């Protein structure tokens, strides 16, 4: 059973070749690394590779096997793809296509205004929902010409990050 790691858009295969306590020989795609790896229960990693020191922190996301990885300045979205998630991915292939027409919130916030109702025809670029967070309002626009199929939230309600808001068909 091989495990793949998805880092933003890149998907890499990874496997451990040898291990002695904190010293690992590990293969990422076709590159082999000898590393010294220490970590704790809270996702803080210290990796030494060829004398270079890497400090990485992993923060688990609400979905299992999903993490946000923080390096010095950057952050990456990580997903571990094993046999189980591959199976789930294949099964949900159909809904994934649909979800491109679903608007979801990139951040937590409060719904200020929904100027559309179920059944309304919208044009690409029409504002369908306004969300406010930290004194700033953001308008979300329809990605397609279509019809409002479902509205998952109400004006005045608070939303989580990545929550589905509106589905357009």
């Amino acid at each position, binding site marked *: 059973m091989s*495990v793949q*790691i998805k*880092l933003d858009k*890149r998907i*890499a295969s*990874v496997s*451990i070749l040898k*291990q002695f*306590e*904190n010293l*690992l020989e*590990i293969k*990422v795609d076709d*590159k082999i*690394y000898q*590393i010294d*790896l*220490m*970590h*704790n*229960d*809270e*996702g*803080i*990693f210290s*990796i030494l*590779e060829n004398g*270079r020191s*890497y400090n*990485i*922190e*992993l*923060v688990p996301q609400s979905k299992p*096997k999903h*993490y*946000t*990885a*923080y*390096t*010095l*300045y*950057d*952050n*990456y979205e*990580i997903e*571990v793809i*094993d046999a189980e998630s591959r199976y789930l991915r294949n099964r949900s292939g159909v809904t994934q296509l649909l979800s491109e027409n679903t608007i979801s919130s*990139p*951040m*937590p*916030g*409060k719904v200020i205004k929904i100027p559309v109702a179920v059944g309304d025809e919208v044009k690409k670029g029409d504002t369908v929902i306004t969300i*406010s*967070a*930290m*004194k*700033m309002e*953001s308008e979300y626009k329809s990605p397609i010409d279509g019809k409002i199929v479902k509205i998952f939230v109400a004006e005045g309600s*608070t939303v989580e*990050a990545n929550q589905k808001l509106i589905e357009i068909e």
Partner: protein
Amino acid sequence: MQKIKKILIANRGEIAIRIMRTCREMGISTVAVFSDADRTSMHVRYANEAYHIGASSSSESYLNSAKIIEVAKMSNADAIHPGYGFLSENADFARKCAENGIKFIGPSPEVINQMGNKIQARLTMIAAGVPVVPGTTESVKTEKDAIETILKIGLPVMVKAAAGGGGKGMRLITTEKEITSLVRSARSEAKSSFGNDSVYIEKYITSPHHIEFQVLGDQHGNVIHLFERECSVQRRHQKMIEETPSPLVTPELRQRMGECAVNATKAVNYEGAGTIEFLVDNDLNFYFLEMNTRLQVEHPITERVTGIDLVKQQILIAEGHVLQITQDKLRQTGHAIECRIYAEDSDNNFMPNPGRIYNITQPLGLGVRTDGYVYEGYEIPIYYDSMISKLIVWAENRNEAIARMKRALYEYKITGVKTSIKFLERIMDTDDFRSGNYDTNFIEKNKVELLAEKKCSTETEDMIIIASYIEYLDQMNISQISKEMYTAQNRWKKYTYQKNFERL
């Protein structure tokens, strides 16, 4: 003279804690107030007493003056410190405090009003001999008058609502053919926002420097200034980085601007800490912009170079003490820079990014101060400002201060939310900032360099992939994540060793 024994802090976040720190040093008891969303906020945990004042939205809590005064009376607080934002420049609130026998730490309601009305503030400054941006001294009531005045002043001009603020009813006019339409839209926006369509017109200064002077005035007519702060690094009209001394200001200009700031403060019999904001053009002409009748966010850099605790001075002045500091004893020692750490996504148009703090490591070491309020496991609420911390460094000179700021930003680690840390470090690397040659157009001008896609090397990516894989293997093997405190033995070192046993 009335000794203050207990202060209610009508604010939240880092500034509430900043004020309480000084109270603690002065042996003054502190009262915090909090909204639904702030029950777990640090200011509630830090204070001696804390009381709930309403629902999460500011209008139902931190702006609810009646409720705050009720809590102040109930808890027997002698004074209220408003911090910045919320009720800090609300003359009505200051008046209600006085009516209820509570000392409002700040100027009188009359002064707050006088400086809050832009036209009145301009008139006061002209009378005190302080230069103002060329423009009208009265509000312009009709469209015809407005157009005539604009042609007289000369383009470009800024049209602003007389009753306004917050960018509402404000228009920049650069060409003759847009005068009529922009004057109309400014007036209608002023009418709908403030119920008053009068506007005033100012000459627009292209890419000015935003430089402000800190002032202190006591109840006995003594006024001093504590030098300038350069605040030109702004995004969306919000300050990001401040420093003092300003790289632009010469000793001679500092003296002239300082005198104007003192005169302006004396002109209104100002009591407490305040800030006179100036616009400065590249030929070193300076113009009064406005007076902030409160403590500023960026006050710590002034504290670093002068060694004076501004909150302590505010409290002493409120007690009726005579200022013990005289102008000739004041010195700017070394150089201080402040960076504001916002919970926001710099790569995505500075979109706010509230959420839960997973890990936080604040920088320490020589010359570093952080004024913040978030802690591990704390959920930043969606209702308030996105600023989570201020990082202030001090060094002997400007170059050393920039190097120290870079070092401190490198140490600053916040995970769980996106922050402006990376963006701030890139600013430290730009030629314009390093040479001190920048104005309010800085971020726009350096946009390409500041927002460049500079992702990590493939090797770093591979290390992240390895870390994720190890984390995944562990998750498969551990039934429960522990957060227990470890005893003397260092679990970090033995970790992999133990994990291997579990796997057997």
